[in-house]
C-alpha cells in the first residue's frame, strides 16, 4: 500500500501532467525500458490493424475535470483544483447540434470529473432527453452528498430516466477508501441507498444503476459475472443496496494510475501482464469503435484515455466539434498506443465493462 496523495498531478506540479512524458514512458523511452511489442504489432499479428471505427453510437462528453474527489487511480487527473476545465454553454450547444444531426447516436455518455458540478449539467441532460437520446451519467456518488444543492440529484436522474453508472471499487470499506479517499465508502453507500429509494436498481422501475469495479491496485479484474454476483450478495446483505450490473474495468496506465505504477515499482510487471493477457477476441469490441469522446474545450478523441493523453482523432483539420464531419470520422484510423493493451487484456475492458 502507498500513502494516498490528496492532490492532482497538476496541483503537485508533477511532470506527468505533460502528456508527452507519459507517451515517452509508454514507448519505453523513459523511466523503464520495456521489452514489449507495440499494440499495433499485436493487432497486425492477428490481422486487425489498422483499427477502424464501426457505426458511431455513443457520444461521450467529458464536461469537466472538476471533482470533489481525488482518486489515486484517476486517469483524468481530476480534482477540486480543476476549476478552469469546465465545458461552457456554447460548446454544449454545439454538442447538442451534433447529437441531433447524427441519427446513429443513441446514447450520450456524460463523464468528468464529477459532471454534476458543471453549472450547465441539468440543462444539458434535459436537452439531450428532449432529443430522445439515452443519457448515461458517470456519477461518483459522493457528489450527491457533497452539498445540499445536489441532494435531489437522484430525483432529477429518475425524472429523466438517466442511466447512472457509478464507481464502487469494492464492497469493503478499506479497499474502496484506499483508492478513492478516506470516508468515500460510507458516503457512496449512503448515496446508493438514496438512489435505491427513488427506484434505481429496483426491479420493474426501468431505472438503471450500474456499478463500476476497477482493481484497487496493480492487478487485473477477475470474472465480471462472478464479481457481480458477489457484489450483489454483499451489498444487499450488509447495506440493503441493490444495483443492476457490475462493469469490470481494467485500469489503464495513464495519468495518476501510471504514476501509482511507477512509484510502487509495479509498472513493468503490470505492462507485461497486460500484454500477456492480450485477447484478439476483445479487439472488435473496444469502445473507440462505436464511441467518440469530446473534451471540455470541444476537441474530438477516439476515447477518454486518448483524450487524457492528448491524442486527438486522426482527421487533419477536423479535430474540433466546430469542424465535426461524420463522414471523415468514419474513414479515420484509430490512434493507438501501449495503453490500449488495457482494453484487450483478458475479457477486455470498456466503459460498459468486459467485452469478450
Amino acid at each position, binding site marked *: 500500500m502507498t500513502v494516498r496523495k490528496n492532490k492532482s498531478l497538476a496541483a503537485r506540479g508533477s511532470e506527468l501532467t505533460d502528456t508527452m512524458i507519459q507517451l515517452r514512458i509508454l514507448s519505453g523511452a523513459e523511466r523503464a525500458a520495456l521489452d514489449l511489442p507495440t499494440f499495433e504489432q499485436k493487432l497486425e499479428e492477428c490481422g486487425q490493424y489498422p483499427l477502424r471505427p464501426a457505426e458511431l453510437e455513443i457520444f461521450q462528453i467529458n464536461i469537466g475535470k472538476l471533482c470533489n474527489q481525488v482518486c489515486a487511480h484517476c486517469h483524468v487527473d481530476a480534482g477540486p483544483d480543476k476549476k478552469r476545465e469546465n465545458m461552457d454553454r456554447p460548446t454544449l450547444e454545439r454538442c447538442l447540434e451534433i447529437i441531433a444531426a447524427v441519427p446513429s447516436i443513441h446514447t450520450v455518455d456524460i463523464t468528468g470529473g464529477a459532471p454534476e458540478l458543471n453549472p450547465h449539467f441539468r440543462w444539458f441532460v434535459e436537452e439531450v432527453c428532449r432529443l430522445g437520446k439515452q443519457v448515461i451519467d458517470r456519477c461518483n456518488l459522493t457528489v450527491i452528498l457533497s452539498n445540499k444543492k445536489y441532494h435531489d440529484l437522484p430525483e432529477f436522474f429518475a425524472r429523466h430516466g438517466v442511466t447512472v453508472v457509478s464507481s464502487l471499487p469494492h464492497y469493503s470499506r478499506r479497499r474502496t477508501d484506499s483508492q478513492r479517499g478516506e470516508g468515500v465508502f460510507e458516503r457512496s453507500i449512503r448515496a446508493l441507498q438514496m438512489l435505491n429509494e427513488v427506484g434505481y436498481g429496483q426491479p420493474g422501475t426501468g431505472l438503471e444503476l450500474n456499478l463500476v469495479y476497477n482493481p484497487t491496485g496493480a*492487478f487485473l479484474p477477475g*470474472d465480471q459475472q462472478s464479481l457481480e454476483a458477489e457484489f450483489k450478495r454483499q451489498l444487499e446483505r450488509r447495506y440493503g443496496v441493490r444495483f443492476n450490473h457490475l462493469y469490470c474495468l481494467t485500469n489503464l496506465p495513464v495519468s495518476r494510475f501510471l504514476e501509482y505504477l511507477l512509484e510502487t515499482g509495479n509498472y513493468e510487471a503490470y505492462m507485461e501482464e497486460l500484454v500477456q493477457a492480450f485477447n484478439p477476441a476483445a479487439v472488435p469490441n473496444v469502445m473507440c469503435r462505436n464511441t467518440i469522446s469530446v473534451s471540455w474545450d470541444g476537441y474530438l478523441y477516439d476515447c477518454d484515455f486518448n483524450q487524457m493523453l492528448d491524442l486527438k482523432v486522426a482527421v487533419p483539420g477536423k479535430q474540433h466539434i466546430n469542424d465535426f464531419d461524420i463522414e471523415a470520422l468514419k474513414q479515420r484510423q484509430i490512434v493507438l498506443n501501449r495503453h490500449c493493451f488495457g482494453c484487450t487484456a483478458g475479457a477486455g475492458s470498456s466503459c460498459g465493462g468486459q467485452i469478450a
Partner: protein
Amino acid sequence: MSNDHYLKRDHLKKFGEITDFQEELGSKFFEYYNSVMDEGALTRREKALIALAVAHAQQCPYCIDAYTQACLKEGADEEQMMEAVHVAAAMKAGITLVFSVQMMEDVKKKTM
C-alpha cells in the same frame, strides 16, 4: 550447485516450462489444475482463498505470491484473505494439539 538456486522469484513464471521435460504429464497436470481452479460448485474466489490458505500451511512462497494476486483479482479483500490464513493456522494448531492425546495416553500408561 550453490544455494542461490533455491526459491527464485522468476521460477514461478517458468512453471509452465515443466512440460519441456515431460510434455504429456505436464500438460495433463495443467489441464487438471486449471479445471479445478475454474468456477464450479465453488466460485473462483472461494477456491483462490482455499489455495491461499494451503499456500500458507505449506509455506510455499510461489503459491503465496500467486494466490495473493489471484485473491485480489477475484475480488477478495484483506479481511477475507487474512481469515483464510487463520483457518490454515487454526488447522495447523489443531492438528498439532490433537496428537497430544496420544502423548497424554502414553504419559498415563507410563506413570503412576
